[in-house]
């Protein structure tokens, strides 16, 4: 499993992603600079990491979505390559229109940094094969702008096509207003594109990939991708 983690000016979760997708899962992971125009040969997975690319100026992810490397990432995604956007990476995926909708300021109006419980809605994706459908996992969030928004028509399409991959839930898996940390529509924490190869989520699986760091519920992202690659591309 060869992972390329894109580093934008202001990214700050890139090394965590390298560690999680590389050493922890037994694969190899390298960083790619945003000004590069190509991904390393043989890349299996591209991670757009968390952070504050370009200082979150203008809109979170807006400038990063227009950086040189994103042309290569979009081309890679269009060919079926696996792309995972975490937190700011999710914002970059929506700004680049690889995923629909937008991430707005949390309705509570402040930055929220805490572990949250999520319900796995899709366990058939390259990123989620090792999870079980409706499994409840704990993964931390750390964002000020994570309120997922899409127009009513777009929401109908997402829900109709089963493209919500993760939802914020309570400890028992119930989708409640209290367990929604940012006011996201339908408690959406992560979504996937139509083809299933581009996933964006606000929670940080790379931060919960080793028990030593507080939890390892995120590790299945990396084992899932590995399994998917070993089983042959669909």
């Amino acid at each position: 499993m060869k992972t390329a983690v894109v580093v934008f000016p202001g990214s700050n979760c890139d090394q965590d992603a390298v560690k999680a997708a590389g050493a922890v899962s037994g694969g190899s992971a390298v960083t790619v600079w945003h000004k590069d125009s190509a991904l390393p040969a043989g890349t299996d997975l591209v991670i757009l990491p968390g952070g504050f690319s370009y200082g979150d100026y203008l809109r979170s992810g807006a400038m990063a979505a227009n950086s040189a490397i994103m042309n290569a990432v979009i081309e890679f995604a269009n060919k079926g390559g696996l792309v995972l956007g975490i937190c700011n990476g999710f914002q970059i995926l929506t700004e680049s229109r690889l995923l629909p909708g937008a991430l707005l300021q949390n309705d509570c109006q402040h930055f929220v940094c805490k572990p949250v419980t999520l319900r796995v809605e899709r366990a058939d994706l390259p990123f989620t094969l090792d999870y079980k459908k409706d499994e409840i996992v704990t993964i931390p969030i750390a964002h000020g702008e994570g309120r997922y928004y899409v127009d009513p028509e777009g929401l109908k399409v997402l829900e109709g096509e089963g493209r919500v991959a993760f939802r914020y839930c309570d400890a028992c898996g119930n989708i409640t207003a209290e367990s929604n940390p940012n006011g996201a529509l339908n408690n959406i924490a992560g979504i996937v594109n139509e083809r299933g190869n581009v996933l964006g989520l606000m929670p940080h699986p790379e931060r919960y990939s080793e028990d030593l760091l507080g939890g390892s519920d995120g590790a299945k992202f990396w084992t899932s991708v590995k399994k998917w690659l070993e089983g042959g591309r669909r």
Partner: protein
Amino acid sequence: MTYGIRLLVFLKEGVLDTQGKTVAASLKGMGYSCLKDLRVGKYIHLDVEASSEAEAVAQVEKMCDDLLVNDIIEEFKVETEAARA
């Protein structure tokens, strides 16, 4: 000619403007019961080299489309200033 362009960007109606809501609540708390609505947006000033005002505005509208505005959540208004040589 150089055209000064004032670009005003706001969240669309129906998209919750958390900042506007907070500021409005503060003003109401200060006694401004006359306040009916308040939205916080962005003001971007651009100086654009163009042969006509229409061309300057068209260029800015293209910039809005490419980067400055996200039409999923935002709307914008362009105002022009007098041209400078």
